[in-house]
């Protein structure tokens, strides 16, 4: 089984069909993300529709990733693929593709945990951040804090008990009549608004490092209802700014607790919510060194899967052929 040469990575855990070619030294030679777009009209990702699109797109996305890197399948050293967590029907398309390419080409296969991928992206070249460090990954699908001990070893310190931070943005945006996807729309609506106008909860009395956004969502719902349609529309900037501040401060509160508990003095951000300007600004004043990778590495992509795969073992051939997806539960490495 051959393993030398760049890693071809495939990621299909949600609604983006992604492939990338990553050099053995961690250079991202190409990273292609095909966003399906079709889910907007449903107000969220529909698993069956996501899986149908992955089947139609994944081979083209792989071809595109190879072409953009000026490479062909002949140059690939090994294949990496997201095994979970995510939508099983969607994951299975990427897995079937990666397993088939590996089997028919006699290439090694590396199974990667999606969350490990996000963590690997936060410390990527060209400005690598060596472990140990604290990482906050917040997106529409997950919100968790991890102590990255080594490149292939991390410990999840806390995670959301209900909605993910990005999901809270989406739901808040919908309640304010802003549409989907909510993160960028809500951030835009908050411009010029007063973040202190409404006192929304940050689940501050909840101990430990877990997150909860259910109370915040309910608080916004009641506030909008009590204000009435007209007044809510008039004060939309204040509502959006206050809601955004509550999410950001709920995240920061756990980050501060985690930094104190672990004694770590370095922090990375990942996930789509890392693109939020207020969050980026506020982590700058925590007094630790902070690393936020470019937005395209924060949102779901396959380059992060290839980056994580650099530090993971190649599966035995029989295990590669039988590899199955998992929906939930991160593998603690």
């Amino acid at each position, binding site marked *: 089984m051959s393993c030398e040469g760049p890693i071809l990575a495939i990621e299909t855990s949600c609604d983006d069909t992604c492939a990338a070619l990553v050099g053995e030294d961690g250079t991202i030679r190409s990273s292609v993300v095909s966003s399906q777009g079709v889910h907007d009209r449903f107000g969220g990702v529909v698993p069956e529709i996501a899986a149908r699109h992955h089947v*139609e797109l*994944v081979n083209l996305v792989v071809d595109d990733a190879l072409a953009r890197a000026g490479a062909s399948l002949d140059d690939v050293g090994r294949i990496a693929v997201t095994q979970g967590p995510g939508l099983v029907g969607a994951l299975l398309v990427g897995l079937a593709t990666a397993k*088939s390419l590996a089997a028919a080409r006699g290439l090694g296969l590396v199974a990667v945990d999606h969350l490990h991928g996000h963590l690997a992206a936060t410390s990527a070249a060209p400005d690598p951040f060596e472990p140990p460090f604290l990482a906050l990954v917040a997106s529409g699908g997950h919100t968790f804090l991890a102590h990255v001990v080594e490149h292939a070893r991390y410990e999840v310190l806390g995670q959301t008990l209900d909605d993910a931070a990005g999901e809270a943005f989406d739901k808040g945006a919908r309640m304010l009549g802003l549409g989907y996807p909510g993160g960028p729309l809500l951030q835009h609506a908050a411009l010029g608004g007063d973040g202190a106008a409404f006192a929304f909860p940050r689940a501050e009395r909840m101990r430990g490092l877990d997150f909860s956004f259910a109370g915040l969502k309910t608080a916004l719902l009641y506030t909008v209802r009590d204000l009435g349609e007209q007044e809510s529309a008039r004060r939309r900037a204040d509502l959006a700014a206050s809601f955004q501040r509550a999410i950001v401060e709920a995240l920061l509160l756990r980050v501060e607790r985690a930094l104190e508990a672990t004694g770590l003095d370095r922090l990375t951000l990942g996930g789509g919510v890392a693109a939020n300007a207020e969050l980026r600004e506020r982590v700058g004043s925590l007094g630790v060194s902070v690393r936020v990778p470019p937005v395209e590495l924060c949102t779901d992509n396959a380059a992060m899967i290839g980056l994580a795969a650099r530090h993971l073992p190649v599966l035995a051939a029989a295990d590669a052929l039988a590899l199955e997806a998992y929906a939930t539960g991160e593998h603690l490495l």
Partner: protein
Amino acid sequence: MSALLAFDTATAATVVGVLRSGGELVARRDDPPAGARPRHAGRLLRLCDEALAAAGARWSDVARIGVGVGPGTFTGLRIGVATARALGQATGAELVAVGTLSALALAARGAGHPGAALAVLDARRGEAFAAGWSGSGEALSPPAALDPARLAELADPGVGPWLAIGDGAVRFRASLEPALTVPDDDSPLHGVDAGALCRLAAEGPPVAREELVPDYLRLPDAELERRARS
């Protein structure tokens, strides 16, 4: 020497066949116990690998790949089609779409049934996927999602006698008999046959990779609900 690889994951079974020019069929299958979940993801490539080895072929010998495109379970169809597409991408093999109901009907004819055949799969949600063929293999009714109570209407007595096969024929036996004959529950005719898959794969026209898609026969639930609302 070139080899043909064919597989189907539209039903609970994982079915694989390999045919080398001048050689005998090598068949491998996995039938999960009644009520157990399909094992397509874990078994399909392993069975392909085993069948190729038993036929004395390597992956690079595979010149044509036939895949059952359904109708059937959505996740199963996607595993089969995604596997076929990526194997084609890796080997340059031609791709052929094989109708799963067609493979069921062909096996019934091959087993000596002289009359017409209605292939029926349980589509869940109170529906059946079904299609009919005459004794000479002429298509009489195209694959469709139907109310099981109306299946017997597809069996034109003028072209009978009719045999109904497939997991749906077992499940909806009561509404099919006596207009159609349904073999015993444990008859192999109710399962997709590797030989029939290979024959249809050998005879069918190759398709471009981007045209190889599952034959779902049903829109996603979310889409149906959205259309009902608007």
